[in-house]
């Protein structure tokens, strides 16, 4: 008998005027000790499934049908009293955002110990001892003092460790982890996932891992359930699902992943349209309206779960189940095969589909580098004292960064949060004043421009924000949003501006009627299109895009990325593309720059940096970021960046990465390695760096592959 068996679970959420049918006939099982991955886009019902099991639905939410058998009890019908004894006892739960999920005014010792008080009736020093043991287990300092820490005094990774300790302290049989690492940095994400996995195995605990990230699923789950619009689309063992998905939705999800198309120059497959509104879901297959392969039957009959044998599981009778009338007939294509197929049907980019092809930028093509930064430095002063506000130190956000971007090029900027990539973007746009160094736009210092020239200058560099909702004035119609930059810059008369608004909406693929609507009426992806349209309004030469797709679902992300690429081709736009997601950066960029704690540690052609990283940090990042390939995920399980980002207030001497670097030696603390071809220490006669803008530079005393290079040259010499 499985540990958890959900049969035909339906959950509704009553709103004031309508009812959202969040889950519809969801069935799944979890065996003792196994990890089930629950994957889907936002609104697919994966979190609702998790919350239904614990009966922790938001207000208005109710289980309206089905059974949830856990350990011999039907949780859907259990009394509130018995639910309370199961929650935190036999079922532990970890939530997405550890900052908001912890009580800000209680010490972590108190919070972690609470389940023991509730379920085991323990008190006083017994709780203390147990909590300290648990802290030891999850890698938190286990002194008496650390019990009295408050959540705000810890880092994000530590807080998630607290959440894990809290969920596991009563040794549950089932752990539900709802997007446990989405709010964390990639390097921390990996450490947290490893910790959960280790404890799960040690305690032979079953786990439901809810996530939108196929990469996370690939490395951690035994079996996967794919959800779409409140229904299970497909269920299979992880290896099978990633090799040969049957449901057309699963297939489309894989094809929308940027890492598969990276380096091929191909457009991503983007699922057209939006997920359905679950107030009145499509009558038959819910994916049919967006599906390339949908036939008439898909729109009239609800597809039943079909089962085929699943070979990759050793247990007899394992099946791959899917609800699709037109399942995929063969395994997923590899990247190489994709390219081959792409060349075969070499579909020209459908320019004809667009009503309007944009005029290019107003910047002449004369060989002057579009944007350069020279030794850009930004320190944020840290002050103390109520009256005197004396300066007690500085946060070194950007420390001597020189980059250049050519016309029509994309420079991808990656690094963990806190590495200074956003500050660099803001410096380039002029939202921050540099402490020293300069930003040169076409050879002229941006800070030196005054008056009309300065206003003119600002047209050429525009910003695209991460949070499309917060960055659009909720009380302005889209027309006003798009007209505002034109008005500020006195472009044309009223009629010209309205015409430009129409053109911009065409360019970003929104209907012209969108101009009369308000930002909240759009979905996240559509809002990001509006953000892009606003950035394009003044025909800039460079757009600084700060994490423009990180809040979007995979299928929507592909739409926006494709659009950005297309506009770049049309208009010779340049992008400074800031992201923590290496695969997205790799897909879009010509050059990749890697930042660590304010320093540029490596820069070079995208393919080269990705394939042959020379800095240990770049290498670590690549190894850390989960990719949607179970084999690759397991192969690099033991690799990656360890520890957490040190404070930028007193950055480490010498090489700032040395505290986390596997190759660090004594010289790394003494001498800061210069950014140069091939890395190494300071050379009396530096190699000529004028080998074009595409040279691969690294700031490391002991760069990766150095030996190989030495070996090769040595052989040549002999």
């Amino acid at each position, binding site marked *: 008998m499985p540990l958890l068996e959900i049969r035909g679970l339906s959950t509704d959420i009553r709103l004031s005027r309508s009812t959202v049918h969040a889950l519809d006939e969801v069935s799944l099982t979890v065996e003792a000790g196994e990890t089930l991955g629950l994957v889907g886009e936002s609104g697919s019902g994966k979190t609702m499934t998790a919350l239904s099991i614990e009966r922790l639905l938001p207000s208005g939410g109710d289980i309206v049908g089905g059974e949830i058998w856990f350990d011999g009890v039907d949780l859907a019908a259990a009394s509130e009293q018995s639910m309370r004894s199961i*929650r*935190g*006892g036999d079922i532990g739960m970890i*939530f997405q955002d550890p900052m*908001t*999920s912890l009580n800000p005014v209680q010490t972590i010792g108190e919070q972690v110990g609470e389940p023991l008080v509730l379920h085991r009736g323990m008190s006083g020093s017994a709780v203390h001892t147990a909590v300290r043991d648990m802290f030891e287990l999850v890698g938190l300092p286990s002194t008496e003092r650390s019990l009295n820490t408050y959540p705000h005094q810890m880092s994000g990774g530590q807080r998630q460790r607290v959440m894990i300790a*809290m969920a596991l302290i009563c040794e549950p049989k089932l752990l539900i982890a709802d997007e446990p690492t989405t709010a964390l940095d990639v390097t921390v994400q990996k450490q947290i996932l490893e910790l959960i996995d280790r404890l799960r195995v040690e305690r032979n605990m079953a786990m439901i891992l809810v996530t939108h990230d196929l990469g996370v699923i690939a490395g951690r789950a035994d079996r996967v359930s794919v959800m779409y619009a409140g229904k299970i689309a497909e269920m299979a063992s992880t290896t099978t699902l990633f090799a040969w998905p049957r449901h057309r939705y699963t297939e489309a999800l894989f094809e929308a992943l940027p890492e598969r198309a990276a380096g091929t120059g191909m457009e991503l497959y983007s699922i057209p349209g939006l997920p359905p509104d679950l107030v009145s879901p499509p009558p038959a297959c819910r994916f049919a309206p967006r599906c390339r392969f949908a036939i008439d039957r898909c729109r009239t009959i609800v597809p039943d779960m079909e089962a085929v044998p699943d070979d990759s599981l050793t247990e007899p009778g394992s099946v791959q189940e899917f609800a699709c009338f037109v399942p995929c007939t063969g395994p997923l294509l590899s990247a190489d095969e994709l390219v081959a197929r792409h060349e075969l049907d070499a579909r020209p980019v459908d320019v004809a589909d667009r009503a309007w092809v944009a005029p290019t930028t107003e910047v002449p093509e004369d060989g002057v580098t579009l944007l350069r930064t020279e030794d850009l430095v930004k320190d944020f002063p840290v002050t103390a*004292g*109520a009256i005197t506000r004396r300066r007690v130190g500085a946060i070194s956000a950007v420390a001597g960064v020189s980059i250049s971007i050519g016309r029509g090029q994309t420079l991808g900027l990656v690094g963990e949060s806190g590495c200074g990539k956003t500050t660099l973007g803001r410096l380039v746009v002029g939202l921050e004043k540099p402490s020293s160094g300069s930003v040169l736009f076409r050879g002229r210092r941006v800070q030196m421009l005054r008056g009309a020239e300065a206003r003119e200058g600002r047209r050429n560099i525009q910003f695209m924000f991460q949070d499309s909702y917060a960055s659009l004035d909720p009380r302005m119609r889209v027309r006003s949003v798009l007209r505002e930059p034109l008005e500020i810059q006195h472009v044309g008369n009223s009629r010209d501006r309205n015409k430009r608004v129409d053109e911009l909406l065409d360019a970003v693929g929104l209907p012209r009627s969108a101009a009369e609507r308000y930002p909240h009426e759009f979905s996240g992806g559509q809002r990001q299109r509006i953000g892009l349209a606003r950035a394009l309004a003044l025909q800039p030469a460079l757009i600084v895009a700060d994490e423009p797709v990180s809040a979007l679902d995979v299928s929507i992300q592909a739409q926006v990325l494709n659009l950005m690429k297309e506009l770049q081709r049309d208009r010779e736009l340049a992008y400074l593309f800031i992201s923590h997601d290496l695969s997205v950066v790799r897909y879009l960029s010509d050059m990749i720059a890697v930042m660590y704690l304010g320093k540029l540690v490596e820069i070079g052609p995208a393919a080269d940096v990705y394939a042959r990283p020379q800095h240990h940090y770049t290498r670590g990042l690549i190894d850390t970021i989960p990719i949607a390939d179970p084999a690759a995920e397991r192969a690099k399980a033991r690799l990656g960046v360890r520890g957490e980002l040190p404070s930028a207030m007193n950055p480490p001497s010498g090489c700032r990465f040395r505290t986390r670097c596997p190759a660090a030696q004594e010289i790394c603390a003494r001498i800061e390695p210069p950014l140069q071809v091939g890395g190494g220490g300071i050379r009396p006669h530096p190699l000529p760096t004028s080998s074009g803008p595409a040279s691969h530079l690294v700031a490391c005393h002991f760069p990766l592959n150095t030996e190989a290079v030495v070996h090769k040259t040595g052989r040549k010499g002999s």
Partner: protein
Amino acid sequence: MIGYILRRLLQSVAVVIVVTIIVFLLLQALPGGAAHAILGPRATPAQIATFNEQNGLNQPLILQYFHDLGNWVTGNFGFSYKLNQSVSSLLWERLPKTLILSGLALLLTVIVAIPIGIIQAVRRNRTFDYIATALSFIFYAAPTFFIGLVLIDWFSQKLPWFPPEAPQSDGIIPIFQDFDAMVLPIVTLALLSIAGFSRYMRSSVLDNVNQDYVRTARAKGASETRILTRHVLRNALIPIITLLGLSLPALFAGALITESIFNFPGMGLLFWNAAQQSDYPIELGVVIITAFATVIGNLIADVSLAAIDPRVQL
């Protein structure tokens, strides 16, 4: 912590000094000046000149100000010719009474408003919530003098439960001996703030019950009562503490309208009468006391905020 309080006290002194400058200048701008007000409208120019000479009122403003400031620092707020008594002795007599009235009203507010707000939030959009909401809107909107008169009419005239007038005795102890007479003024004063604070508390609790940490507590198996008392309450009180601190100045300044309706001899009534009779030294004294109470109230609010919210560092 102690350093912080000292720094804040220094800031407070600066604020109070600025207030005294403003008040001083305002009083200078009054028509006729102090001599006119004290000697009456029929005073001859010669009498006024003599008075100004005697009281240093013909000196430059800046000297006058520093002279006055020196007096205030030593607790000398001048002499009320109208009441023929020194202002400081008047303030010493009135301040404790006002503190009793306003303090008890504030206490009643806290005791009543916070539970009402919590119950409203827990049972939102149910009968109790609707009734409490309707009542709080009525009390918030109704003028204090109206509520006071209605209470006198009902509970003193129609039902002879309480006397219509506050205790008139001089000391503090007699007030408590005649506590029946204090009930109506306290209730009148409290009703308005109960209406306000129950709304604040309701929305503060509502803000918190939908927070992620409450879901976490539920996922640990905590009961709803425990969630409310152990988790929500302390978080919900954080904004309330600040609001309470900000209402402290009213405690010192006294409740002008309530005190005059019930003829309660507190600071409010003192100020009211002084204003009507152009008794400037009294007004000056009350304003300075209130300014001081305001900065101290803010300081207390900040310190208690730090005590309840570990994220706030002083």
